[in-house]
Each structure stands twice: as C-alpha cells, then as structure tokens.
C-alpha cells in the first residue's frame, strides 16, 4: 500500500529524481560528466604513473612493480561474443564478465543474484520464476525469451515458453561457474533465436580446478530453514582425460509470511500468505573431456510452492505449486587443423518438462477444482562451425546448425472432475547457417560483420545481420560503433495454447529488433577501466496477448506492439593492492510503447549498481558490499511503484583454516520492504519481495 501512488493521480516524489529525464538532459549530463571527470582522471593517471613507475622506452615499467601488483593486472577475455576467445576490447559488443571470485565475494546464491549486480540489468521475481530485464524491457506476463542463456555455448531456453531459469531452477549450481559473460546487444547473427537483447554465456569450471586432490564438499545454512549441500569431484589425469562430476541439493521453507497489498485497480482485496513459499532443487553436472572431445550433461529439477494465485488461481490454497525439470546431454569436438583451420562440432539432446498445479474456483456447481499444466519438450540438434584466418587480415567463421524438435507437447486438464482442455503434440524443425568475418582493416581498426539465415518449419525464414566497427586510436582506448538485428521466434505456447479461454494463432511471425550502439572503453593507469555506452533499440512485432474480436473474444497472441528504447550507461571499475576493488555503474533507459506513447510497464528509467571488495586480511579475508538501486516502475495497471535501494554484505575468507572457505552473507541488510509488479495474469498488482535474510556457507577442498 505504501509503495503506490493513489490512482487518482496524486504525484509522489520518485526516488532520487524530481524531474522527468529526457534525451537532451541525458546528452548534456554525459558531456558534463566527461568534462568534470577528465581533469580528475588525468590527475589520477599522472599521479599513479609518477608514484608507481617511471616510463621506460615509452611504455610502463613492469619491473618496478611488486609481485602482488603483477598478480592483480587483468587481461580480460570473452568467448561468447564472436564464438571464440577474444579480448573484451575486440568484441563487437558491450561485455561484462562476472567471475567465480565475484560470486564468492558478493555471496551470489543464484544466477539471478549474479545478473542483478550487472550494469543495466534488473531481475523481477513473482515468487515462482525470475524474469530478466535488459535496458528497460521486462514486460509483465512475458517469459524471458528475449535473452539467450547458454551454458558452455549450449542453449538453456526451452522451446515451449522460451523461458530461461535464473533462480534455484537454473539447472547448474553457481559454485560450478567459472565466469558469466553478459554480452549485450543482438546476437542472432551467430546464435539465432532468443539472442534478442543479449546473450548470457555461463562458462563452467574445469575438472582440474576442483580442490587439490579433486574433491570439494560444500554446505550452507540460511534464513527460513534453508539448507544446501554440494559434492564435486574433478581432476585432470596424467593421460589427459579431464573429469568433473557434481551433485547439489537445496531446500528452503521459504518466506513464512508474505503480505500481498490490496489493489483497487484489479479489485484484489489483499492477502497474507503463510508458510507456502518453500522450494527444493537438485541438480547434477558431469563433464568428461579428452583431446578436444567433450561429453557433457546436466539434470536439474526444482519444486516450488506457490504463495499466490497465477492465472486467477485461488490465493492461500496449499495446492498451488509447480516443478520444472531441465536436462541435456551434449557431445562436442574442438580441433585445430593444419593451415590455420579450426573446427567445432556439437550434437545434443535436450529435455524439458514442467508441471503446474493450480486451484481454481469455477463457481457453482463445480466449486474449487485442481487444474494441471504439463508441457513436455524434447529436441535434438547439431552444429558444425569452421573458422580460418586468411591472409592474416580476415578471420572467417562459417557455421550450420540444425535442430529437430521431436516433441512439443502441451496439456492442460482439471484433475477432478476430469476435464481435458488441451492435449496437443507437434514436432517441428529449424535450420540455420551463419557467416562472420573479422576484418582487420588496419592494425587498430577492425570490422566484425556477420549474418545468419534461419528457417523454421513453423513460420518460415528470417535473416539477421550484425556489424561492428572497432577502433583503437591509441593503446588504452577502444571505440565501437555497432548495429545488429535479431529475432525471437513465436513459441509453442503462443502458437498453440488453445482452450475455452485462449485461442492459438498459427499466423504469428517473429519479433524483431534493430539495435544501434556506440561504446567507448578506456583503461586508465593500468588499474581502472571505464566503459560508456549509448544505445537505441527499435523493437517491432512484439507478440502480445489481447482479447480477440467480437466473433471470438478468447485471449489470443498477435504481433501487435512496437517499442523504442533509448538510453546510455556508464561504468567504472578499479583494482588496487591486496584484492581491494570496486565497480560502479549507472544505466538510463527510456522504453516507450509506440502505439500509446507511454513508458513500458516494469521499466525503471534509472538503474545503478555498486560493488566494493575490501580486504580484511590481505589475500585471505574480504568484505564484499553490494548496492542495487532502481528507480520507479509502473505496474501492469499503470500505477507507479516507487524505486528502491538494496544493500547486501558478504564476509568471505579462504585459507584461514587449511582448505576451508567460509562465507557469511546478509542480503537486503536494511530490511527494505519492496515489491515487484505482478503480471496481468495475476489477481494481485504487486508481489512482495524478501526482507533481510542471511546465509552461512562452508566449502572444504581436499
């Protein structure tokens, strides 16, 4: 109740800003920031150079640095931007890397926690699933198919709803993550479907990285009876075989009291849900590799109690729950051939199923009945990619991918009395071919251009190009001018979900985006990195659910909406001795619906993040602080939800006792009561989020 402005328009002061930001203001502010920052940065630059090291032969003198300083200099690389390893400054995108050290120092529990700390990203939680917003777009009721999530290059998004799993439903334990690459911008020119606003590539740890003798055991205990356990074995043997096996389990009783505020806009009277937010998850990961051949697989299942009523289900009914299961097996082969050829081939088989149980009130004479949703998807595919460097100037990559969806099954029925509403199976296929050239025009000027052709048996073909000009005028600066197109194919749910209330639509076409971006990356005095970006996205044919025509008023999906997003971001990172580091970012994004001229719902104009690691004992114990700030957002009912600032603190140590890592974290330190807007499919307008919680974690390496 406190978070909403009254519906009759009384204006409430938003967090931190009293003025409507406009495009002109943004440009003026960026210019003045540069003018102010320049003398400061220049002073810091010369000061640090003068203080630290004299110039030798026109270059920094590394022999004057201490061993600790040498060990803290970073040369960051990314794999997912061009489908091969390259320095971030050479990638045709604005990239952020989150490392396993970040995950430990900031106490990230899930991929959602990781992404919530990244510039320009924000995660919304509806007590069932997490939804990712990049640069101002996170429409309520959509499932998250506009960001492609990969694990080691393998697509995690499932084809029924296009959802990606970001919480404990993510099928990989975050302790197995080596790094997360957040690659902003359209990526369909290489990856095809879902690489709309960006790609998130999760890279797993290698077997040899696990423990000393290869065994790691981890356990944690947290608020609300939350427990987790993990056992991992990993090793690289003398014969060259590398193995990683891991199993994890998580269980939590969940938030014991969730207060859902009433809404005059939806007519929801308000509710207090007690003891119905619990979840449990288990996952397994296995990877074996030898000489370029890798066989990898995972399995994850997450069960959750639902404290609210999605799709008009009854509140406070103990029967509302869901579970998700995601699994895959993949074989991939990577090999360097003579004459500078490199080949990568992969074949995979995937499985996804979900079961949602909801209690509906059908009114007299049926009354309350239990409804069940049980889709199932299985698919298999393969990809072959060849790359070659020609004449030292061109790195050419060609690839083909084919995928056969053996089964996309959707089923919806009432348990008792038994009524089947939907029972539909279909199979489909898609093929894609892509080409990319990285043309080193001059030693410091590169053109990265690529295009991909995709054909889907459901809707036909789509062609998506991307081009990036990357210029390094002098050694510490990189300028990038980027253009890309991407698409999101309509999924099984949008095409086929057909029953008494919903109508399927086989005429759907893919959503499209054209994105323009300018990026400036600057290294300052070895230990600072500044990134600044301006972007403009034109999104067309957004698949939106609406009431049908008078002849058939059932809800139906159509390609109706178009959105323009304009914005920019600024990020500064610094590293100092003994592990002291900080990262601060700010992103402005104005996402407007072109039909109505209004801002999109669930779109904060301003998003800020701050992470700071302070060594308590050099190299052994650290304190990690994180601040996440979001400005006001609109709910689905067009009321204003005020912004919030959240703080998390983690104390982390390793090697204090031999082979032991200990961490203690407090999340939402100030116990801020905040909400996320709910999807229009829900009876309530707002979903309450968690207050202050803690977690203690121990990891033992043998």
């Amino acid at each position, binding site marked *: 109740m406190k978070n909403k402005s009254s519906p009759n*328009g009384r204006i409430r002061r938003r967090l931190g800003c009293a003025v*409507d930001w*406009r*495009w*002109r203001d943004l*440009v*003026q502010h*960026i*210019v003045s920031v*540069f*003018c102010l*920052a*320049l003398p400061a*940065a*220049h002073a810091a*630059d010369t000061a640090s*150079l003068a203080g630290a090291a004299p110039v*030798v032969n*026109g*270059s*920094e*003198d*590394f*022999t004057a*640095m201490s*061993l*600790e300083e*040498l*060990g803290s*200099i*970073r*040369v*960051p690389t990314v794999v997912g931007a061009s489908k091969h390893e390259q*320095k971030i*400054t*050479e990638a045709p995108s604005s990239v952020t890397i989150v*490392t*396993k*050290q970040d995950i430990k120092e900031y106490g990230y529990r899930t991929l959602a926690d990781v992404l919530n700390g990244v510039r320009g990203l924000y995660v919304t939680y509806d007590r069932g699933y997490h939804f990712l917003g990049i640069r101002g777009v996170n429409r309520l009721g959509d499932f998250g198919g506009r960001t492609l999530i990969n694990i080691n290059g393998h697509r995690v998004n499932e084809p029924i709803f296009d959802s990606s799993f970001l919480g404990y439903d993510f099928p990989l334990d975050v302790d197995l993550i080596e*790094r997360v690459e957040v690659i902003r911008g359209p990526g369909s020119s290489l990856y095809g479907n879902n690489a709309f606003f960006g790609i998130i590539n999760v890279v797993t740890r290698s077997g040899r990285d696990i423990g000393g003798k290869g065994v790691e055991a981890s356990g944690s205990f947290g608020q609300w009876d939350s427990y987790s356990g993990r056992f991992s074995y990993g090793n690289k043997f*003398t014969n060259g075989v590398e193995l990683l096996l891991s199993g994890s389990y998580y269980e939590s009783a969940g938030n014991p009291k969730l207060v859902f505020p009433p809404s005059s806009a939806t007519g929801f009277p308000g509710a207090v849900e007690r003891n119905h937010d619990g979840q449990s998850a288990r996952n397994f990961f296995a990877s074996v590799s030898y000489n370029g051949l890798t066989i990898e697989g995972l399995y994850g299942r997450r069960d959750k109690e639902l404290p609210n009523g999605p799709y008009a289900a009854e509140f406070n009914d103990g029967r509302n729950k869901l579970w998700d299961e995601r699994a895959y097996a993949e074989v991939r082969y990577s090999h360097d051939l003579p004459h500078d050829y490199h080949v990568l081939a992969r074949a995979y088989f995937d499985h996804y199923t979900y079961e949602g149980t909801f209690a509906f009130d059908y009114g007299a004479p049926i009354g309350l009945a239990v409804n069940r949703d049980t889709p199932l998807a299985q698919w298999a595919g393969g990809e072959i990619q060849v790359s070659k460097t020609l004449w030292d100037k061109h790195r050419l990559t060609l690839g083909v991918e084919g995928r056969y969806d053996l089964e996309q099954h959707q089923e919806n029925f009432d348990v008792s009395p038994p009524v089947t509403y939907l029972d539909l199976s279909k199979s489909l296929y898609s093929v894609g071919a892509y080409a990319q050239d990285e043309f080193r025009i001059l030693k410091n000027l590169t053109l990265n251009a690529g295009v991909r052709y995709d054909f889907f048996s459901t809707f036909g073909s789509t062609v998506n190009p991307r081009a990036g000009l990357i210029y390094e*005028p*002098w*050694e*510490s*600066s990189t*300028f990038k001018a980027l253009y890309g197109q991407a698409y999101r194919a309509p999924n099984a749910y949008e095409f086929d979900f057909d029953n008494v209330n919903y109508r399927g639509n086989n005429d759907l076409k893919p959503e499209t985006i054209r994105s323009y971006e300018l990026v*400036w990356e*600057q*290294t*300052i*005095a070895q230990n600072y990195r500044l990134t*600044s970006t301006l972007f403009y996205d034109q999104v067309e044919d957004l698949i939106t659910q609406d009431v049908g025509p008078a002849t058939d008023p059932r809800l139906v999906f159509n390609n109706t909406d178009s959105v323009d997003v304009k914005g920019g971001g600024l990020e500064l990172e610094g590293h100092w001795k003994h592990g002291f580091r900080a990262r601060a970012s700010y992103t402005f994004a*104005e996402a*407007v619906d072109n039909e109505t001229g*209004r*801002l999109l719902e669930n779109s904060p104009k301003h998003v800020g993040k701050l992470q700071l690691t302070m060594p308590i004992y050099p190299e052994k114990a650290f304190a990690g602080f994180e601040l996440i700030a979001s400005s006001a957002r*609109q709910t689905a009912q*067009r*009321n204003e939800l005020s912004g919030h600032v959240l703080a998390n603190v983690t104390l982390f140590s390793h090697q204090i006792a031999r082979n032991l890592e200990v961490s203690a974290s407090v999340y939402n330190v100030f116990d801020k009561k905040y909400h996320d807007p709910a999807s229009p499919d829900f009876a309530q307008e707002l979903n309450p989020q968690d207050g202050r919680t803690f977690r203690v974690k121990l990891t033992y390496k043998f």
Partner: protein
Amino acid sequence: MNPRDLRTPWPTPRSPRFQRRAWLAALSAVLALLWASWSLRAAESSSLALEYKVKAGYLFNFAKFVEWPTAALPETNSPIVVGVMDGAEALLAIQQQLQGKTVNHRPLQVKTIAADGPITACHILFVSRSAGQAAAEVRQALGQAATLLVGETEQFAERGGIIGFVREEESFRIHLNLEAATRAGLKVSARLSSIAKLVKTKRDN
C-alpha cells in the same frame, strides 16, 4: 491514466531549433570523448602485449628473489642471462622490459634460444607457448644445469618446470615447484614462495 506517464514531446522533432540543439549536443559529446581518450592515452597498456609485459615483470622479480649457486654466478657482477625460447611477442616484451636493468648489481642479459637447437647456458629460461616444447623435454635437455625453468603452458611446474604461469580469473599468477628448484641447485626466497601456489611434480605412469 496518470498524465506524468505520458512522454511529452520535446520541441517537435522536425523543428530547426531541435535539430541544431541535437547536432551541437552530439558534437560536444564527440569532442569531449576524443579529448578524454587522448589525454588518457598516456597510460599505455595494449592488451596485445600486456600479457608478456606482466610476465617480463615477473621474470625480473624471479631474478631478484632466487639464489644461484656460486659456480653459476662466480663474480659479484656476473650477468644474469635470461633465455627466451621462441615467441616473438614474448621476446619483444621481455627485451624491452629487462634490457639494461640490474638485479643486485648484476646486469640482465636477454638471449634467444631456438626451440629445437642446443640450449646455451642461462640462469632463467622462459619457454614460450609457441615453442611447443614440453616441460619434461626441456628439463631433460638442461640436465644438471642451475637454470630456473619457467613456462606458460598447462601444468608446466608440475611436469618438469620450476615455475609455471597460470591464468587465474583474468590475471596471471605463478605455480612454484620447490622440489624441482632444489634439484636444480636453486634457493627460492620466502618472498617469492609466499605469493606462489606451491605444487609438486606429477609422475607419469
């Protein structure tokens, strides 16, 4: 509908006043950007050569914190010879960083060593990854020589080398095999062993 939600258009997009303002704003932004990066370019750190500049810095520190037997350094000012096996980029960076420097009054000399040629006597031998030589093979070729064998390929220190460069997160750290150092007759100062990860030789079956 809350009127504040509406995006109020800023002087109509087609008006000349708007266009002039937009151009001025864009131009000043671009100029500010260029000036900013030009003044910040003094901190040279090309990502291309940065890796080897860092490793050259490490090699300098190794010369500082390792003791060779008297037979290897008879005079108080005998030069410390740093051999670089292959790797044009590595050689360039190491030469640039070490040439002309002194460690404990001893001048540093940088020499190239061919990957398949004889290994002339050097106090530190850095095997670049493009040399394609396994640590065990180089160790064999060195025999009893009091050479600090440093490499950057996988498990270099565990398979015959003394120090291996390892990529950790996004920076470079070192693995140190004290047993191999002792066998070569070298003494490693605690200053160096304290920041390294100590590893043991892995025996092949």
